[in-house]
């Protein structure tokens, strides 16, 4: 009730007035509610559709396009034509084919990074939160140290050595991007471990590892899903930035960031070479963020629609 009255100037809380008064409609299943809340976000639906369409074209498209690595010296730096819809680069390679390939690699790295980083973060966060004490302090110290060094600086330093292949790029970025996940999981675990069902399991003599795996992690699935989604967006930004500085995936392979880096020199004559991959990156991240927000709202209704 207090929620309701505290916001005299707001016009938004009307939606929640019923809930705020503690008088919600008949309860539905949790999964059903989550799905309903997700659906409320029209933008997330649009984002999902866009992302699926892009993914299909990145993975299926190359079968119909030219070889991304085929050099045609007679067709160097051509504008868009029927043969080359996006034109060609300075080596005469088909830019459409390269864009598809680049998109595929960017998405692949993003998903891989997100999964690895979330796993590392969950592990560290759960251990720190569950055991507390010295372990917690150590993890905390590690996080503090990593937060001190600008992410990009570390990426630049190590990108030169490890950034050459898609998988190593993903691992490199993941090694630095797990901090937020760790912090989230730690906070959740601190809360969860005081709850009755965990206390009960402990009283029944369950081992720590079992409690973490069986009782804590399953309860974190929701926030982890959100974290993976949002991290995928972050990963694309970091990967493309690294590639833009020529420290990411090395030629002849390519990612969207690499494409932009290669096009930078001819920005005066053919800005579209920069704008197309840039726009694709932006659309991918935008879609991911919309989905992530909707997921967060679905998982944790308290977080509200943003």
């Amino acid at each position, binding site marked *: 009730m207090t929620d309701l009255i505290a916001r005299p100037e707001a016009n938004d*809380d009307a939606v929640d007035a019923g809930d705020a008064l503690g008088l919600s409609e008949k309860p539905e299943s949790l999964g059903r509610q989550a799905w309903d809340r997700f659906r409320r976000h029209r933008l997330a639906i649009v984002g999902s559709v866009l992302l699926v369409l892009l993914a299909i074209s990145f993975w299926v498209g190359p079968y119909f396009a030219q070889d991304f690595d085929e050099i045609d010296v007679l067709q160097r730096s051509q504008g868009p034509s029927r043969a080359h819809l996006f034109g060609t680069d300075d080596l005469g390679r088909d830019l459409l084919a390269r864009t598809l390939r680049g998109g595929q690699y960017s998405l692949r790295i993003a998903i891989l990074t997100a999964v690895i980083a979330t796993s590392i973060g969950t592990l560290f966060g759960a251990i720190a939160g569950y055991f507390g004490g010295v372990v917690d302090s150590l993890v905390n110290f590690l996080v503090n140290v990593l937060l*001190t060094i*600008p992410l990009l600086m570390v990426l630049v330093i190590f990108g030169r050595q490890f950034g050459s292949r898609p998988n190593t790029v993903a691992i490199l970025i993941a090694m630095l991007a797990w901090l937020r996940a760790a912090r989230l999981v730690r906070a959740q675990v601190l809360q969860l471990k005081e709850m009755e069902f965990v206390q009960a399991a402990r009283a029944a003599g369950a081992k720590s590892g079992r409690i973490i795996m069986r009782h804590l992690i399953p309860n974190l699935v929701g926030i982890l899903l959100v974290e993976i989604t949002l991290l995928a967006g972050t990963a694309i930004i970091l990967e493309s930035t690294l590639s833009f500085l020529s420290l990411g995936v090395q030629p002849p392979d390519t990612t969207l960031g690499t494409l932009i880096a290669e096009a930078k020199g001819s920005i005066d004559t053919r800005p579209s070479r920069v704008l197309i991959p840039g726009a694709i990156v932006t659309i991918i991240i935008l879609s991911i963020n919309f989905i992530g927000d909707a997921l967060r709202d679905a998982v944790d209704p308290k977080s509200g629609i943003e």
Partner: protein
Amino acid sequence: MFIFALRRLFAAIPVFLVATFATFWGTSEVVDPTDNLATCQNCSQAAYDRIIELYELDKPVPARYASWLGDFATGDMGSATSQGERPVSEIFWERGRNTLLLALPAFGLLMILGTATGIYSALRQYSKGDYAITSISYLGLAMPTFFFGLLLQVVFAIWVPKYLGIKPFWSSGMHLESPLQFVRSVTLPVMTLMFVLLAGDSRFIRAAVLDIKSADYIRTARAKGVSERKVISKHLFRNAMIPAVTVWSLNASALLGGSIITETIFSWPGFGRLVIDALFAGDLDLTMAIVFAIIFLVIMFNLLADLLYGVLDPRIRYD
């Protein structure tokens, strides 16, 4: 308060040491100062030995770190092999100043614009203005900094001159001849440096103010008869300053990191470009000096933020 500051300072020392040692170690593993000599035709064995001796490459990393740190503490930053062995300190201050020429205006604008748009958005939630700010923020969060920079170049260095016949801003290089030239040359890089961070700041402060707006104590203030203007300018604003400080301290480190991209795009002779050049040239001393400086500044900003929390939030205890 003083004791509190001192304690925080001491707590920061191990973080500083570990962070700098880790980067020193990492850089040493990755950067090989003798790389350049391998391709150098006229370079003698003597030159090679000199590099080994200069960087003490024959010693283990911890020993090298200790001796480097010792020199650094006494003001000796070493010499930049990639720039004719010019003292690093000279290059350091010159390039550092150039980076600050971008970072300081960006930081100031971020403080003002981030807080203003965030508070506005939250107070006028779901208004047209909020939708506009929110939409732009979403775009900002989805755009890599380098792409936004290139976009600005396309618009202001290609399209505007082409269609309007004027070139309002420099799209490359640093021009300090007059205040006007200065403004013309910093505008695009500062916007680039700021845009992505601004989007994040605005969203963060909006969310924080939405929380504060619905807090019980705001209702209490209204129930006392405090005017709406004062409820916002006193009760709400004062509480919103706490999350704002969090954002600002994060901005400081993000701005320094972001300078790498921005300076590369706009050919700005600052830290960011220098660190990349030095790294590629295998110039260990120069690379480390910049990395150290950035880590130091980030820690200082965190410390400053902690002190500010203490001032702004009475719930934080000094003991």
